[in-house]
């Protein structure tokens, strides 16, 4: 039967199965292939909380969701158009998010009696008619692969492991994906294990064939190429981007890099990446705790390194005292906090934006520290470099806030050439005649930095209040006020050195949506939809939280109403109201989910109708 061809604007696909089913691999390949084919892509892996929950259970489902599209998109899709379900549980947990008429590719052998029971199904949903709203394809993947690989010297268990590639093949053919990228990748990955490579290649091919020859599939879909800027691209998670950012920042500053860190979900991967960069000269210490993570970095910074620490909420809470020290020492440091759902251990795998006020105010004494935030996975690269730039130029610790969503999700990252990234030029004092440890640059208010090993510049710094210019210990009243003012003025002064806040849409009017950090994608997509639907609303997004961009007050005052959607109970709202006395409408959710596009959309529609505020 000749198949029909149909063009789509985009689609959202979800690969779901057990932890061992290789869904992350299928997802990554679908995503990278689509990127390589010139589509916009955005993904999110959805791991179970348990390390390896018992097979087939509802709480053990591991999934990977991808949205691809011709127009720019910034979220991984609210509703699923295509579901690859390796077993009954993965079908069940995904069902609520399926869009009408969604395509379901089900792995038949994952719907046996045992699987159904674990998924708490009385009858087999593939057979009992309950899925009649959807286009269901029940595929004997495992049986087919056993036949296909009968001639290979491979145990049935290993053969079964290829089922993710078989499923990938099915959707590649169905959505006209080019298999070349994946074939190349498989060759590189399994080059040294020819049998495994062979089995995987056969699975992919067989899956594609399955779609081609099977009449159930009446239509083949295409997603047209986007107007993507030419260049090299890769998909990148926020955590890898942050790790890269650290290395590249050090490179552009002509400095050595030191990372002191303690593992904590969802920040640990930054440490993983850094620990693999040894051939780029990176030093790191997996410390005994978060306090040592930061304090060892302080030691390295004193030694003249670009030093950093990475953590998540509970770890940030432990670093509070040392952040205060870093503040008064006025040494450069990058502190990356990948926010997760709190309070306390909370829900470690879920994103939130509930650390903003803590980053801002969570230290005893007046201890101002600059704060920046990344908008998406790829932006973690930029903002890490930006945090390092500010730290080095102003001699200050800088906190970069990301979150579990952008840290673990991916989007396409346009690979820059190293030469295109601006250089930074930190300098160390060398002249004993002029050196004083708290003498400041009149422009930036940064103090002078001298490193051990420099002859004649021996000096002492510490956590006691110090005398202006000399850096001697001082408990003088006026000096303490002066130093407090100077520390604040230094941070405030950074406002001159960062981009202005940009407004998208009308530059003034009734309603502004103001976001910050990792809610960027959802707000942007919602705003795009609203504009498509003719709504008059503007948006702006903050990446600099302390200090704010110089024009923020002006922007706020240009709008009658300002809506701040954030994944907390009102952190930015509090800061803006407290500072600018501008009444803010909060859209506050702490439900463990990334911000949902439709939540923003609906709130704006409601506001536009009601004129509330």
């Amino acid at each position, binding site marked *: 039967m000749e198949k029909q061809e149909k063009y789509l604007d985009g689609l959202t696909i979800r690969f779901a199965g057990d932890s061992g089913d290789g869904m992350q691999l299928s997802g*990554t390949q679908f995503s*990278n292939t689509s*990127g*390589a084919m*010139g589509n916009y892509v955005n993904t999110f892996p959805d791991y179970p909380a348990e390390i390896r929950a018992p097979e087939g259970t509802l709480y053990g489902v591991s999934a990977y969701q991808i949205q691809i599209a011709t127009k720019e998109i910034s979220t991984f899709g609210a509703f699923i158009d295509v579901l690859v379900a390796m077993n009954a549980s993965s079908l069940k947990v995904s069902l609520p998010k399926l869009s009408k008429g969604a395509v379901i590719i089900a792995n038949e052998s994952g719907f046996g009696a045992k699987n159904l029971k674990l998924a708490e199904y009385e009858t087999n949903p593939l057979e009992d008619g309950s899925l009649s709203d959807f286009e269901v394809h029940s595929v004997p993947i495992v049986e087919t692969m056993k036949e296909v690989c009968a001639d290979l010297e491979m145990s049935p268990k290993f053969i079964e492991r290829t089922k993710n590639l078989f499923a990938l093949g099915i959707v590649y053919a169905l959505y006209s994906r080019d298999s070349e*990228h994946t074939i190349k990748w498989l060759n590189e990955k399994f080059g040294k294990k020819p049998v495994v490579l062979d089995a995987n290649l056969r699975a992919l091919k067989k899956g594609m064939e399955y779609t081609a020859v099977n009449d159930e599939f009446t239509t083949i879909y295409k997603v047209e190429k986007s107007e993507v800027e030419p260049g090299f*691209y890769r*998909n990148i998670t926020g955590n890898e981007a942050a790790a*890269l950012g650290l290395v*590249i920042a050090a490179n552009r500053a*002509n*400095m*050595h890099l*030191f990372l*002191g860190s303690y593992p904590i979900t969802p920040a640990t991967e930054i440490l993983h990446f850094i620990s693999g960069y*040894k*051939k*780029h*000269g990176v*030093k790191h*210490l997996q*410390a*005994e705790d978060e306090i*040592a993570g930061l*304090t*060892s*970095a*302080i*030691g*390295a*910074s*004193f*030694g*003249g390194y670009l030093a950093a620490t990475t953590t998540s909420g509970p770890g940030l809470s432990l670093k509070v*005292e*040392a952040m205060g020290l870093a503040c008064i*020492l006025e040494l450069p440091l990058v502190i990356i906090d990948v926010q997760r759902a709190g309070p306390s251990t909370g829900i470690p795998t879920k994103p939130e934006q509930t650390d903003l006020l803590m980053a801002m105010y969570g230290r005893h004494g007046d201890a101002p520290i600059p704060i920046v935030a990344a908008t998406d996975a790829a932006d973690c690269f930029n903002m890490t470099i930006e945090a390092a730039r500010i730290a080095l130029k102003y001699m200050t610790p800088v906190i970069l806030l990301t979150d579990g969503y952008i840290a673990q999700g991916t989007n396409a990252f346009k*690979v820059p*050439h*190293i030469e295109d990234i601006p250089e930074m*030029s*930190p*300098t*160390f004092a*060398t002249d004993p005649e002029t050196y004083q440890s708290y003498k400041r640059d009149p422009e930036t208010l940064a103090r002078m930095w001298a*490193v*051990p*090993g*420099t*002859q*004649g*510049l*021996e*000096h*002492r*710094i*510490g*956590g*006691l209040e110090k005398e202006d210019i000399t850096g001697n*210990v001082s408990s003088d009243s006026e000096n303490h006020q002066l130093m407090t003012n100077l520390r604040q003025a230094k941070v405030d002064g950074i406002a001159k050195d960062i981009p202005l806040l940009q407004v998208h849409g009308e530059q003034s009017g009734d309603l502004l949506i103001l976001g910050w950090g990792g809610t960027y994608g959802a707000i942007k997509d919602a705003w795009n939809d609203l504009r498509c639907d003719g709504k008059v609303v503007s948006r702006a997004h903050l990446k600099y939280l302390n200090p704010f961009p110089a024009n923020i007050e002006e922007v706020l005052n240009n709008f009658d109403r300002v809506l701040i959607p954030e994944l907390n109970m009102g952190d930015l709202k509090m800061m803006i109201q407290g500072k600018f006395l501008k009444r803010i409408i909060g859209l506050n959710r702490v439900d463990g989910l990334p911000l949902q596009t439709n939540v923003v959309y609906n709130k704006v529609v409601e506001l536009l109708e009601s004129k509330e505020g």
Partner: protein
Amino acid sequence: MKNVLDSVLEEKHQGSFEFTAKDLKSGADVRWCAGCGDFSVLAQVQRIMPTLGIAKENIAVISGIGCSSRFPYYMDTYGMHTLHGRALAIASGLKIARPELSVWVATGDGDCMSIGGNHFIHAARRNVNMNVLMFNNGIYSLTKGQYSPLSLKGQITKSSPLGVLDDPFNASALALGAGSSFVARSYDKDAKLMKVVLERAARHNGFAFVEIYSNCVIFNDGAYDGYTTKENRFDNTVNLEHGMPLVFGKDLEKGIKLDGFRPTVVSLTDGKHSKDDLLIHDEADTTLAAILADMTYNPTVPQPMGVFHAVDRTPYDQRTTEQLEHYAIQPGAGDMNALLKGNDSWEIK
């Protein structure tokens, strides 16, 4: 472009090897109480540093918080007075970053073993190459007299008006248990011993822990008089020397012998025992080190002084350097463009 740190160090580091104890005095007034034991540590440190063959600008002294932690302010070296308990973690970061520096840590019994206990055991385990001087005065002095984990059971202090209920740590046993490659002890009142011990610590390639009994004249005066005064030290301490029998007493008339694992005092003059019967000190023996540490709270034997234990184990900072050196010559080392591109990228034309 050249790394800024490397170029500053190349240019500015001709090496000031010719300096004296006096050059190590910073301008700051030493604000310890008159008679404080900490003075004698300061004096000996300033005395030996110029003899170590280390350039003055390559010395860094890191401390926590406490009377003793004011130490760096009095030294004209690079220095940092940090947070209570965190000196070792900060010093570890500094040493790993800058292995060519001579890193010293000044810390108190509270700073090191109470709030700082975790960093202590981990720095010891990793064998970060630094010299840790723990000023043990058996009390929290800066906060005016609470008991520390090295105060004795029953001790009356401001926070134990009815007597301390805790058992104290045995500092050297803890250091050994944590894997410290060098463990020693000295005390304020014996400048000669202090000098020897500090020199040995400085020359040790690895984590060197020195417990120093230092008298706090205000809050715990006389705590160590039982061993450290001129009258008591001969009978109540025994100076350790590698390869030599444990003899002590004013005229070296007594010795330590092992009964099984139990050290006992024997007379060398009653004709029953000779030096040949005595325990021979072996700095490399872990079990012996444990036995020596155990003598600390044993009232029937003198307190060992000097180097309990010293073994060679590659320091962590050195391993880091070696690993980096190894990988720095691998193909692709330093190729930032390859790193940026990763291994699963695509091109849009």
